[in-house]
């Protein structure tokens, strides 16, 4: 059956995020159809596919912005489909937005403090954590600038910092490398690898920048027209004829 998750060889780790048969329609258009995959705990999984494949819709379904019409979503074994986005965040899921949504009137540091407040009750503690995260993302020099004045790459980094500050168990990254120079991309890749290795942060990322996908993902899920057409390690998937066919004409490879 198309879309059925293939068991990852050699992994006995439980799946932190399980998507089973989710579907979503918008005014008759099937954006996501019977999509299933798993994100094992501590893994980095890439979600790729041509534009309009339904990747961001998947994210929105997982994060609670939309409610799936069918199927189940489980986070650490608990069903979270139908929950509100803030409830899902408190359950341990962090996400960034493809169209970045900074708190424009607040400074960079204050933006991240908002995120950090999810795990601290006191503003002081949150500020300390926020300062650390801001440094990790290389935004320290701009931490007192208003977020509205940042360049796009910096705004993307801010999105990541904010989501990271909530100390998530799993982080959903939506095209955070877009528009970055290769050195910046490498730096982000290094950061995520480090967080994954040190803290065991699970990551699910939507990416068009293949360099990052190949470097980071242990497993890749390919979406096309709202359906999963391939799942597997990046090397395999990128040689899959069905995948190559759907990308023909796109210069993603």
């Amino acid at each position, binding site marked *: 059956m198309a879309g059925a998750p293939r068991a990852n060889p050699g992994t006995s780790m439980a799946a932190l995020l399980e998507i089973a048969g989710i579907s979503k329609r918008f005014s008759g258009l099937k954006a996501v159809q019977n999509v299933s995959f798993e994100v094992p705990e501590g893994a980095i999984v890439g979600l790729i596919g041509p534009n309009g494949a339904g990747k961001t819709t998947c994210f929105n379904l997982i*994060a609670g*912005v939309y409610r799936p019409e069918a199927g189940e979503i489980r986070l650490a074994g608990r069903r979270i489909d139908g929950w*509100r*986005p*803030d409830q899902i*965040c*408190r359950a341990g899921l*962090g*996400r960034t*937005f493809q169209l970045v*949504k*900074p*708190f*424009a*009137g*607040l*400074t960079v540091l*204050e933006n991240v*403090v*908002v*995120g950090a*407040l*999810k795990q601290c*009750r*006191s*503003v002081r503690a*949150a500020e300390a954590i926020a300062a650390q995260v801001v440094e990790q993302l290389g935004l320290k020099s701009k931490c*007192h*600038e*208003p977020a509205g*004045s940042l360049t796009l790459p910096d705004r993307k980094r801010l999105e990541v910092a*904010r*989501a990271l500050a*909530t100390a998530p168990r799993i982080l959903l990254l939506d095209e955070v490398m877009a528009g970055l120079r290769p050195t910046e991309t490498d730096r982000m890749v290094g950061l995520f690898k480090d967080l994954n290795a040190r803290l065991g942060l699970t990551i699910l990322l939507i990416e068009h920048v293949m360099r990052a996908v190949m470097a980071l993902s242990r497993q890749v899920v390919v979406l096309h027209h709202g359906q999963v057409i391939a799942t597997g390690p990046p090397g395999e998937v990128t040689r899959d004829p069905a995948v190559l066919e759907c990308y023909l004409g796109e210069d993603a490879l």
Partner: protein
Amino acid sequence: MRAPWLDGAPSREIILLCLLLAALILFPALANDYLITVLILIFYFAYVGQAWNLMMGFAGQLSLGHALYVGLGAYAAAALYVHFGISPWLGLWASVAVAATTGALIGFLAFRFGVAGVYFAILTIAFAEFARLAFDHWSWVGGSAGFFLPVANYAKNDLINLRGSPTMFYYVLLAMTVGAFLLCHALLRSRAGYYWLAIRESPEAAQALGINLFRYRMSVVVLSAAMTSLGGVVFAFYYNNLFPEQVFHISRSIELILAPIIGGIGTLFGPIIGAFLLTALAEGLDAIMRAVGLDVPGMKQIFYGVCLLVVVLFLPDGVWPPLAKLLRLDGRRAQGQPGY
């Protein structure tokens, strides 16, 4: 958003504020009754403006029916005093309870049913109008003929029952204004403050960071309503008469938002500066017109309207942010930032 200057060592800004406060405390000893009443008005508008600013400037919810809470607070405390002789210091708890419950009702209806933006503003107008008409027919509080508080003796200052000279009200309102300022300052630096600002800037991003939109929106509406109602209590005991047509009228609601908008929405000093500017300029205009012999009702409102127009068109952040920058009181912060 944080005020680094309140973190410890006294700085230029704190010294200035303390001087200003000292001046205000000494003021009644030096000034005549007329000036005292002018400042009473200023403090009143600064106070209720600050309360409204909580909802709009902090959480981004536009209320155009805030006179509702002033009126409810006024009538509750006044009714308890007139009918049962209860002191306004006790009566104000009833005011707060009534206003908070009404705010909670409006907030619940609005946020549960997704009524936002301009529709929310219209909803608040509708509630205020409804109250105006309802109170017009409620004879226990006087109906449309008005509700009157007995005035005993102006010479004697009875703080317990808020009966007394303008000077007494001056200090009460000064204390309230300072209190509101300090409260808002503390709130801005608190978890709630950060969350409110986040909701104002981007509700979706706020949700994605674990913020419960409903709970925080509700809390700001209820707090704002409760704070405003206290202004209503003082209003009732200062003017000693309440007419639904005036108290709940939409022009009252608009009046009380002029100061924060002109001063600067979302800033701490905005409502205060706005109240000073507006009232001072209006009184000045009045004086000029009387001197010229043009004492026509409505001129003052035209003036207010023009001020509002000018500010909305050319100074969208209000008067305070550019002024603060000019006076270099903004502590090297970028312009257009909230909370100062």
